[in-house]
């Protein structure tokens, strides 16, 4: 990807063709993950037909929803060559705050979602501000905020617990209800996914996020407001994480201080497996969402296939390595292909 930006602006025709080449390669990546997902589901279904029963399908969709949301938010940050490790803590804090807010009241589910998003946005703002204006590496900043947010959550919760009986029915329904077989949670996740994908693809500021991740220096020279864009990416990621926290409460009903503890690594895994390069500039939220679905579906399939749970972690690890290897191979091949192509065009002119 770096190469595309570094090559001197080619004439219109070659720009279009190299862009479509890039598109094809990465669409191929998404298609292969989708293929793996389909194979996994079909294979499990052949062994046990209950896997795709009405209840089974609903379960698969529900299990993936929250991770899909978090993966979508995370990919926006990763595309800018940054990372947000604090998402797990933000989910935990937001879930507990929302739980306290509704505990033994009759408050509306929409208010709860807004509260969750607000808390997430504040956390995202802090992360984004430190990373973009403080010029501190994102890994360190968000590792710090991971602990700080977790600390606030622990201090606040101090061993308290929100129980399902205290949460209003309206909120719980959001986590378990469905229309024509499609759970609300999954519909919400899909809506967020489509919106973010459209933004990244069709808005100027969305495209600029890719430019920043591909080559920050070139992006700066091209006049991209890097700090503002990175800050926006973090606020978006944080808001989605806070939103996911509110949905966590709706889904699980019982909330303690350390919900979603350690989820940040699962989210990053999903994003990387989904073809978003950890060095930035490459990948789509579609891929990240597919990666998230693949990871949760593996977890469900292994239990149905009666495989030792130990293998779940091992398989996630193997998938990560496979994804990174594939990235590397594609990268090398594409660089070669692009170089050839631009050389050919150079001769033509």
């Amino acid at each position, binding site marked *: 990807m770096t190469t595309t930006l570094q090559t001197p602006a080619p004439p219109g025709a070659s720009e279009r063709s190299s862009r479509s080449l890039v598109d094809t390669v990465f669409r191929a990546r998404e298609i292969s993950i989708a293929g793996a997902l389909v194979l996994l589901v079909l294979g499990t279904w052949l062994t046990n037909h209950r896997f795709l029963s009405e209840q089974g399908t609903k379960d698969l969709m529900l299990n993936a929803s929250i991770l899909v949301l978090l993966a979508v938010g995370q990919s926006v940050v990763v595309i800018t060559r940054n990372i947000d490790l604090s998402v797990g803590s933000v989910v935990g804090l937001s879930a507990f705050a929302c739980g306290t807010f509704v505990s033994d009241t009759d408050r509306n589910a929409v208010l709860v979602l807004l509260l969750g998003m607000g808390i997430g946005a504040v956390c995202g703002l802090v992360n984004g501000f430190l990373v973009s204006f403080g010029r501190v590496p994102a890994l360190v900043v968000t590792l710090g905020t991971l602990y700080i947010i977790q600390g606030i959550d622990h201090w606040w919760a101090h061993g308290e617990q929100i*129980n399902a*009986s*205290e949460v209003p029915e309206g909120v719980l329904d959001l986590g378990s209800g469905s229309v024509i077989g499609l759970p609300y949670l999954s519909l919400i996740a899909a809506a967020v996914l489509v919106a973010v994908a459209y933004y990244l693809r069709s808005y100027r500021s969305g495209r600029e996020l890719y430019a920043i991740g591909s080559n920050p220096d070139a992006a700066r020279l091209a006049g991209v407001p890097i700090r503002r864009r990175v800050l926006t990416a973090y606020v978006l990621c944080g808001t989605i994480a806070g939103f996911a926290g509110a949905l966590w409460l709706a889904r699980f009903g*019982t909330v303690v201080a350390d919900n979603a503890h350690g989820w940040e690594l699962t989210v990053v895994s999903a994003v990387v497996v989904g073809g978003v390069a950890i060095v930035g500039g490459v990948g789509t939220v579609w891929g990240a969402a597919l990666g998230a679905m693949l990871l949760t579906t593996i977890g469900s399939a292994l239990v149905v296939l009666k495989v030792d749970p130990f293998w779940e972690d091992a398989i996630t690890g193997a998938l990560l390595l496979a994804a990174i290897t594939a990235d590397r191979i594609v990268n090398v091949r594409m660089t070669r292909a692009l170089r050839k192509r631009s050389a050919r065009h150079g001769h033509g002119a």
Partner: protein
Amino acid sequence: MTTRSTVRRRGTAATAVACALLVVAGCSGTTKDSEEDNTKPEKKTEATANPDAPIKEGLKVAFLPKQINNPYETIVDKAGMAAAKEYGGDAKEVGPSDASASSQVSYINTLIQQKQDAILIAANDPNAVCGPLQQAMDQGIAVVAYDSDTAKDCRQVFINQASSEEIGRSLVRNLGKQLNYKGKFAILSATQNATNQNTWIDFMKKELEDPKYKGMELVKVAYGDDDDQKSFQQTQGLLQAYPDLKGIISPTTVGIAAAARYVSDSSYKGKVVINGLGTPNQMRKYVKDGTVEQFSLWDPNDLGYLSSYTAAALASGQITGAEGETYKAGKLGEFTVGKDGEVILGPPTIFDKSNIDKYDF
């Protein structure tokens, strides 16, 4: 050349002497220590219990839970501190925010310096806390373990919430009654290497050896790692993998809440029995909507109360932790110290529709 070698030799000799001195010093240190060690058990037996001694006024009692953010331990400690108020003591709770093996050590040292009269600890690791606790006992501080035991020599009394055997066996007994002793069932545990979980599961298996359970079969032990999402997935997977599954026992509060939440709005509601260990507040909704008929747990309030009174009895000289001693624990009545300094709170309480509203924890 010669001079230099002499110097070197002299140097070597000096080092050797220094080493020898160090060894001697080391030895004498050891002797002293071992002498002290020898006297320790004598001291213990010498101290006699006076069952009629009144509880001392203004005892300083400190609770040291596994971690301060654990909802269950918070209940226990709060009840313990309330009990201390009852007997005129001055109680507090201190503790680490993570439950790692060595995190409690520095807290014990601080408590010793503060000259507390009693330390109550739920140990994260049976051995890591041993040294400092023995130091505390040497200085006359009463040491009581509750919830999770330390090694036997590092505390005077251990308050066992219910014997592991009773917990394991009673869970199978209750499920057996609910299923009329027929059908397949599974266990949803926490992590694969949780000691208490595995001990309970072993006793469940022993109970199943009784011929009256010959119609029941334990098909799988699944692990939800005390994570909501994972426990959900395990429950879903179990119900899909074993279509004729009739029951699930989950001896962990996170697991049983997740299993109940999943079953309560799935097509399995009413078709599968969920039982296990949970807290009334957490399970209230599922008991009321009929997903769960009953579950059990000891009352953590009673556990804290009893632990607190035990610490006071030790610090006031009513007991020393020897087998057979009896003492009175406020409203809970009389308790007897058992083998290895263990005091058992009692059998687990069964919670169902009829009594759940009497409890708030």
